[in-house]
């Protein structure tokens, strides 16, 4: 056994000078350059995978909405989304928007996540987008919040949010939120195969269902491919690149993905034939509705009835 040098041995401790130097911080982060578009695209691609992970996780549970037939869930969701378009009273719309929150809680979906994923994005931005119309410049009415005094920038009455304008913006936000709430609830509590099976049983053509199913599956394959290309470009680039080169890269990626998708189509078709594909789209097996489904339908009809009565009472 060779003897280890003593700690005070100079040769043992001596390090090259360059290794002892403090690292100089050089800003070589790709994000500092014009690669922001890659970061954003990769973020969106990873959000698709994240979404799929959550869908799988919550759909596998056995709770309230998970135990309801997918056909019933689709029809009830659609009915409530249509109802939201017909209702104009904000109070009734708020009640309608709160129903999916109860369903989410009873189905084991964390309310924080539900709220963040639904209300803090599209509905909120829909509201912000409608806010300019809530001023007296577009929708007239009594002043709610004054933004500028009369005479400001040549405006005789000044600038203010009107009460009817604010309500109009609120309506848009609530309707957008209600629609997304039901979609997310449906997808988070139902496996994709059940969703498409239910669509088939409500007479959506089988050919379209086949295309939809395969599309959903291969979206992840192509996204992975695109994500890998983006990541490779991202980690290899130091400093700035011209926007022209970046656009050229995206053009090449688009073409490359198209070529790969066409190659895949041929391979997938061969694989389908090997597995006995009969060139006729398969038919989903339809199940009878259970007692729980009937109870859910009745309770939904009652809830819709209460909302419609509330709308007519408050309208008067």
């Amino acid at each position, binding site marked *: 056994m060779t003897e280890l040098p003593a700690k005070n041995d100079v040769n043992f401790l001596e390090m090259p000078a360059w290794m002892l130097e403090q690292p100089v911080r050089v800003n070589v982060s790709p994000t500092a350059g014009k690669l922001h578009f890659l970061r954003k695209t990769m973020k*969106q691609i990873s959000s698709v995978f994240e979404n799929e992970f959550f869908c799988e996780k919550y759909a596998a549970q056995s709770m309230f909405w998970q135990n309801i037939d997918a056909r019933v869930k689709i029809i009830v969701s659609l009915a409530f989304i249509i109802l939201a378009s017909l209702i104009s009273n904000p109070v009734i719309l708020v009640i309608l928007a709160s129903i999916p929150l109860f369903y989410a809680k009873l189905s084991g979906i964390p309310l924080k996540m539900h709220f963040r994923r639904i209300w803090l*994005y599209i509905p909120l931005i829909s509201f912000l987008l409608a806010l300019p119309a809530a001023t007296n410049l577009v929708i007239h*009415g009594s002043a709610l919040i004054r933004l500028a005094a009369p005479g400001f920038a040549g405006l005789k009455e000044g600038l203010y949010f009107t009460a009817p304008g604010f309500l109009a913006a609120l309506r848009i936000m609530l309707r957008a939120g209600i629609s997304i709430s039901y979609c997310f609830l449906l997808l988070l509590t139902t496996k994709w195969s059940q969703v498409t099976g239910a669509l088939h049983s409500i007479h959506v053509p089988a050919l379209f269902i086949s295309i939809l199913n395969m599309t959903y599956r*291969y979206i992840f394959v192509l996204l992975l491919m695109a994500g890998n290309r983006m990541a490779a470009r991202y980690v290899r680039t130091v400093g700035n690149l011209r926007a022209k080169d970046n656009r050229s890269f*995206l053009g090449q990626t688009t073409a490359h993905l198209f*070529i790969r998708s*066409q190659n895949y189509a041929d391979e997938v078709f061969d694989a389908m034939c090997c597995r006995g594909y009969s060139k006729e*789209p398969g038919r989903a097996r339809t199940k009878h509705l259970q007692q729980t489904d009937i109870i859910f339908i009745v309770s939904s009809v009652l809830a819709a009835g209460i909302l419609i009565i509330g709308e007519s009472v408050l309208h008067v």
Partner: protein
Amino acid sequence: MDDDIYRFILEDTILHIPDGYLSLQTTIPAFAGMIPVWGTALGRLKKTMSSKSVPTLALCSAFSFVIMMFNVPVIGGSSAHAVGAVFIAILMGPSAAVISVSTALLIQALVFGDGGIMSFAVNCLNMAVVMPVAGYYIYRLFSSKSKTGSPRNLAAAFAGSYIGINLAAFCAAVAFGLQPLLFTASDGTPLFCPYPLSVSIPTMMFEHSLIAGPVEGLLTVLALTYLVKFAPGLFDAHRFSVVSQPVTAAPKNRAFLILVVILVCLTPLGLFAAGTAWGEWDTSEMKSLLGFIPQGLASVSGKWNALFPDYSVPVSGADPFGAAAGYVIAAVIGIVLIGGLIFLTSRLMTRKEEEK
């Protein structure tokens, strides 16, 4: 979040219309209109495509979905989204583009809430029908028999993509802008999108003509250039479309189309006409001409409020430009409606004859 707001305002709200902006009276007729379009597209594909159709269309739809996630760099580090509908139409044909983009939009709406469920058909009409079909035929018209990948061919692809996305944006703007005209509460407050045509059209066309249009055109051209270089076989062997076949309908109808465009451009001449056209009298003019108002006319007067009273579409106010634009839009809508009716009648009659 700032980027998300920017992206949403510029792209998602504009073309992926969420629920809440459009009334049921708009979205349900759009579904009614789209069902035969989807049926026709699938029917055409069934006739022309090989047995590989299902995987090819599915992969094409997946491709369409992925393309819509790309952020294309624009200016100063900002980016915009592409749709890729015209690119698919050029390579696979308009019917395949209709089905592929519609499928991608359905998954976006269902799974990610990008675009509403009720406004799905309107979104499909704009992005899966108007954009690829118009873009494809513009491409065919401009490229004529030019060689694939030649400067003329690529310029035609750019024009097709640019005009296609702008037409889609225009249709979305019209859908937005009609809401406050048609659907208001008893106190006049808009029940759905609050912006009139005078706001929605300039806002959306400004953004699409300057940012989204060039981005779409450029991406199509760059991708086609790459394909010509590395996979030229895809142009000749694509399954559903007939890019290599010359356009036969365009030259035959060119004279007719030119005539229609000239007539549409001449419609603002109506502004110079003094007085009311014969037979277009309103009740007050009728009273001054006849001395009384016929009872039947009095009973129906006021029950019908025209969509564009006196052809004054509120595009840019009552100034001469706005009035002229109103005449042109009214003429285009009229021609499309009547032309569509005649076309449908002719198709129905032909089918009946064939059945005999």
